[in-house]
């Protein structure tokens, strides 16, 4: 056994211990990094090349391993996706609910009652001109509220569209980051020596999964292939594709998502394949939820105006005019809530409000027979194939907004709690524990000290030898 080998073993030990301290300090530095996987240094004794029996070959660092559980990573990946969907819908749906709830207490629900009430008052006193003005004012308030509700929903549709646009930017930058990490891993020597980078890429994949439904698989060279929306390639090799969207702001129009394939090799409409993540939540609310709200309120406005006009136009105003519309005629239900208004002639002259069945100069100014029919529309089954009154239809809409909001909130809470569970599990496997790292510091510091002692001893041995 040579003295130089004592030197070398001491050096080995110091080397390994300082590498190990480096890993420990990296772990401590990343104690608060979300998605970080703690690393462990793999140490092995080196195979001997000495002919001296029983003499060890020293120690070497075999590698640095990131501690992860593929099972938990997959769970996290999946739950992030469904959590993303409900979390992104929560806000939109809550906002829709509060628009409906407001409109019940202070808006259309209340004004609808007051509007019909004002007709009954006029029926009670057909000759009082002031009551005609009241009818007109109540109708103006009602139509204003329809207009404002329609505006609010249309504005929300725009808001969600711009959220989608921001989200696509996030998704595209995540995809291009993943492509860059692919390059770093593949060029940096593959899976075995890039634990850090792989853990980071895994976290980006999880973030991407929270945004949109993706799947991925890892190549033997360490790169991942990412597919989006049920199979279309988003990241291939070192190239990332990108998502863009077309927003059809026309009535009932929808937003659609186009994928430009990695390397610019063509583009596909992937809208139908998007069924998870925040993007799906936004897209669903934009294309379905909000369009439904708009068409529901439009249906109410259209039916109210049309059915009211049908009766009103058979009546006679106090000025003997007949065939008057009470609400400006609406061509179709599309956009009706936005355009419903009291007829301009009625606005200009309330004498045209027609509650008489015959010309009042013949039948008398007390003739309120049409007025009675108009007031009776309040209790008629005018909506939903003659099964609901106007008010019941409206209450149904408020109720379904509430049900939708309750169910989305419940789902969001469930997903959040599942996500939290899996995050805790992931932490328990991959998280950094300060005490463990503290123990490692002590362990490797002592090892370093001992190895350096060996060098000192070898130095003395050489000194002693030279002094002979």
């Amino acid at each position, binding site marked *: 056994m040579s003295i130089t080998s004592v030197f070398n073993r001491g050096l080995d030990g110091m080397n390994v211990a300082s590498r190990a301290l480096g890993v420990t300090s990296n772990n401590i530095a990343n104690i608060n990094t979300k998605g970080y996987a703690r690393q462990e240094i793999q140490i092995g004794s080196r195979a001997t090349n000495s002919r001296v029996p029983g003499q060890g070959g020293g120690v070497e660092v075999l590698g640095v391993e990131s501690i992860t559980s593929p099972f938990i990573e997959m769970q996290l990946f999946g739950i992030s996706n469904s959590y993303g969907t409900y979390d992104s819908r929560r806000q939109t749906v809550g906002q829709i*609910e509060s628009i*409906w709830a407001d409109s019940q207490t202070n808006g259309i629900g209340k004004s609808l009652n007051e509007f019909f009430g004002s007709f009954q008052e006029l029926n009670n006193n057909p000759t009082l001109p002031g009551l005609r003005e009241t009818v007109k004012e109540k109708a103006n308030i009602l139509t204003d509220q329809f207009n404002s509700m329609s505006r609010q929903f249309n504005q929300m549709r725009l808001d969600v569209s711009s959220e989608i646009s921001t989200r696509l930017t996030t998704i595209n930058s995540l995809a291009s980051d993943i492509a860059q990490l692919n390059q770093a891993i593949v060029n940096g020597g593959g899976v075995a020596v890039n634990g850090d980078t792989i853990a980071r890429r895994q976290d980006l994949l999880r973030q991407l999964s929270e945004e949109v439904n993706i799947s991925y698989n890892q190549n033997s060279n360490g790169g991942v292939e990412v597919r989006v929306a049920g199979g279309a390639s988003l990241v291939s090799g070192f190239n990332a594709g990108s998502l863009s969207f077309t927003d059809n702001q026309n009535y009932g129009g929808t937003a659609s998502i186009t994928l430009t394939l990695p390397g610019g090799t063509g583009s596909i409409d992937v809208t139908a394949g998007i069924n998870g993540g925040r993007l799906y939540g936004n897209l669903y609310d934009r294309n379905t939820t909000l369009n439904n709200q708009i068409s529901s309120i439009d249906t109410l406005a259209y039916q109210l105006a049309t059915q009211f006009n049908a009766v009103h136009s058979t009546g006679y105003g106090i000025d003997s005019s007949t065939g008057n519309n009470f609400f400006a005629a609406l061509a179709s239900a599309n956009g009706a809530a936005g355009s419903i208004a009291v007829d301009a002639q009625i606005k200009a002259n309330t004498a045209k409000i027609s509650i008489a069945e015959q010309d009042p100069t013949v039948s008398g100014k007390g003739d309120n027979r049409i007025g009675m029919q108009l007031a009776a529309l309040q209790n008629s089954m005018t909506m939903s194939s003659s099964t609901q009154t106007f008010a019941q239809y409206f209450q149904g809409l408020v109720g379904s907004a509430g049900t939708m909001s309750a169910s989305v909130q419940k789902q969001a809470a469930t997903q959040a709690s599942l996500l939290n569970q899996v995050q805790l599990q992931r932490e328990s496997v991959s998280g950094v524990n300060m005490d463990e790292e503290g123990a490692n510091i002590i362990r490797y510091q002592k090892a370093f000290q001992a190895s350096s002692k060996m060098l000192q001893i070898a130095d003395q041995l050489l000194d002693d030898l030279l002094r002979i």
Partner: protein
Amino acid sequence: MGSRVTGLSNYYLFQRSLSLRNIEMSRAAEQLSSEKRINRPSDDPTGSVQVLAMRQSIAKLEQYDRNLNAANQALIQTESTLSSVNEEVILKARDIAIKANAPQNKSPESRAALAAEVQQLQQHLLTLSNTQINGKYLFAGYKTDTTPFTLDAAQPNADPVETYAGDTNVQSIQISDSSTLVIQSRGDQLFQGDGTANTVNLFQSLANLEAAIRSGDYSTTSATGVPQMLEDLNKGSQQIINEITSIGAKTNRLDTAKIQLAGQRTTLSSFISDIEDADMAEVATNFSRANTALQATLQSAGAILNLPSLINFIGR
């Protein structure tokens, strides 16, 4: 799991439980301040739709209540006018007819005086039949702005004595979702009779009475004699009393309807409060429990996150 506890797992744990505790607290505080269990439709979609429907019913009931008041007012005015017609015109005309039949009043002077009295009564009848309330004629049907009755200038001999310019419709008012109530009486039928044997034209009867007294026609067999006129006036009185009775029945119905409305409103209000009101004792308990839970979570988070680790003891 029997697992490792790491720095971030404590963070995730406390972050989630603190956010849950905070949500609990704000829910409890909201219920405490609004005293309501349902503060938005999603709190209880079924319950809130029920509440909305009941609120709408209450609003309608309030409108019906106002309608009932209007109906009541109209009916009372009609009733009091008709009472005047009966008492101040018809019964007085009967008295005159009876007086005229008495032997001591059969002198031409007496007859002329009595006939003049009858003429006055006819004028009074005209005034009553043209009664206006708030500028609207009571007995003109829909033609509330048209004077319903005018006497022919040439009466008592003209035929007909009066003309009716009102119409034969009557206004009604909605008093519930499904029923309406007629609040006008038909002026033509009341004052001119409906053409059947049991009714008479009051204007004509008075004109005939006046003519009979003037001409001294006391024959019990004459169709235009005082005795026959007395008979007609009795019928006329009955005709008015019948209408008063029918109005009385309607005001009774209104009173009943009003009481029912009030009852329905009370019932609905109490249903609403059953559905949406919070049980305050429970809410207060929930609030203090949420508060305690939040405090406890904060304390344990503070204690655990501040625990020293081995690192604190390294390096002498």
